[in-house]
């Protein structure tokens, strides 16, 4: 089983979301970057579990500059065997997916696992783009994955429930909560990660079809109207008559 896990960096969930350069850039001052939780907790861990069951390798891949190396080392500490960083500046998901599929096209991975979205840009685009560039199956928002020989059985979140799908390998998955449980790297893993192979490859000149030109913050709430708990019933009439929400 040759497994590839695509990882991305994302600001820590407690980061202050602020912008600089006249609101055209995300202000990274004081921001701690983490492995995007969906990539780490679910995609990477399920990849490792399958490797433990069936043998094989788990490679992680990230697109971007050397500022990604700490999160790549984290993924290696959790248990990935080796890593690839494609040293390209990708401004949109299209370019990221193109870089990954160009690299992967002759490597015959059986399974390409991605988180369902990043918690920064919430795109949910890279896995589907990779699947189409490679012309292979794509299971979107997967919560379960079992492999039997060359057949993958996958359960995905869909409108109103879940769907059980079957596909031949290779396949791309975008994975959501339920797929696996977060693993905390231990000391041995962290030590081992230092010497695992991280190969840096040049980019293949992928196209950026769009780019961010400005950011803004949502309008602040005008304030909270408090209702006395002894007259809690009043809330229901306010929701009906004032907020017109029920």
């Amino acid at each position, binding site marked *: 089983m040759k497994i590839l896990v695509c990882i991305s960096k994302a*600001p820590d*969930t*407690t980061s202050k*979301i602020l912008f600089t350069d006249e609101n055209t850039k995300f202000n990274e001052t004081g921001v701690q970057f983490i492995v995007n939780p969906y990539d780490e907790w679910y995609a990477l861990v399920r990849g490792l579990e399958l490797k433990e069951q069936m043998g094989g390798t788990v490679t992680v891949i990230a697109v971007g500059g050397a500022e990604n190396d700490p999160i790549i080392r984290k993924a290696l500490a959790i248990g990935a065997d080796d890593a690839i960083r494609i040293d390209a500046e990708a401004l949109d998901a*299209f370019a990221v*997916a193109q870089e990954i599929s160009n690299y992967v096209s002759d490597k015959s991975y059986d399974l390409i696992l991605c988180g369902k979205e990043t918690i920064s*840009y*919430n*795109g*949910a*685009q890279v*896995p*589907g*783009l990779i*699947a*189409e560039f490679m012309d*292979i*199956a*794509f*299971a*979107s*928002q997967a919560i379960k994955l079992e492999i039997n020989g060359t057949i993958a059985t996958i359960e995905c*979140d869909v*409108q*109103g*429930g*879940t*769907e*059980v*799908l*079957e*596909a031949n390998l290779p396949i791309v998955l975008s994975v959501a*909560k*339920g797929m696996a449980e977060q693993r905390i790297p231990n000391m041995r893993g962290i030590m081992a990660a230092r010497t695992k192979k991280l190969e840096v490859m040049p980019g293949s000149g992928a*196209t*950026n*079809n*769009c*780019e*961010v*030109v400005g*950011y*803004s*913050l*949502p309008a602040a*709430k005008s304030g*909270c109207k408090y*209702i*006395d*708990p002894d007259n*809690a*019933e009043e*809330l*229901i*009439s*306010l*929701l009906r008559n004032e*907020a017109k*929400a*029920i």
Partner: protein
Amino acid sequence: MSVIVFLDNKDGAFVKSSLEAVNYAANIASVKGVDCIAVSCGKLSNEVLESIGNYGASKVVSNNTENADNSQIASLVSNLVESNSASIVVFSHDFSGKAVAPRVAAKLNAAIVSGVVELPNFDGGFTVKKSVFSGKAFADYKVNSEKAVLSLLPNSLDVITTDNKAEVIADSSDLGTAKMVIKEFKKKGGEGKIDLNEAELVVSAGRGLKGPENWGMVEELASVLGAATACSRPVADIGWRPHHEHVGQTGVAISPNLYIAIGISGAIQHLAGVNRSKVIVVINKDSEAPFFKAADYGIVGDAFEVVPKLVAAAKALN
């Protein structure tokens, strides 16, 4: 020219988020002075197909293939884009949109902007606003390519309907072989339960409820209001509630008209998934709970005393 929009269906009807997408696509089409053509896959009655005109599509192209996979639907949509020389394709940023839209973008070499919340701005170019950082901010994306795929964040825009009917065009084109086989559909929750992703009203509870045995009053309030139920992450992690109810930055992101949070502290990661709700009610015994800063209405009190009163008042209203 024309704007193409994909429509998803379930149980013989179009899903609500798709109807919003059609309305959005029709609005773009009218700004551009072109047609809005909807495209649907699966067997549907003529009446249902025509009704999409109510939402602004002038035509609906209907392919009868049942259980098509995302690669087949992507072929259907992109063929239609090519044959109409369309430059904008619209999806809902719902489950089906997330599965199909990226494939279409790859096929068409198009820019893809997902989770858009406003009509694009065509003054001197093409920019469109989308939600980023899990609802904590917006970003304006500039489209640099000839074609663009936009997916609309559910419950972002009001839907305006008319009595117009769409012209139904049967499509029997070959969608190629499926890459995946659908084995089974498992319906979520019980009969009559409202799906969290589609819900306009949501009643949610957190660790303040002390244990799973206390969810009766939460479910009752939800049922009286016609709301879906949700929960905070720790509550799903310890197994008090199912995973699919977990809302927040690492769970489901929702934007209902009303979100009632009971015994939830309002951690930044929780707020990130619910802060786009139109009206937020917070019930918490701690007046310092951070959630009150994001609330429109608040009750500082014990959930075990407050919620039964709300249930009674809501019942009296019905």
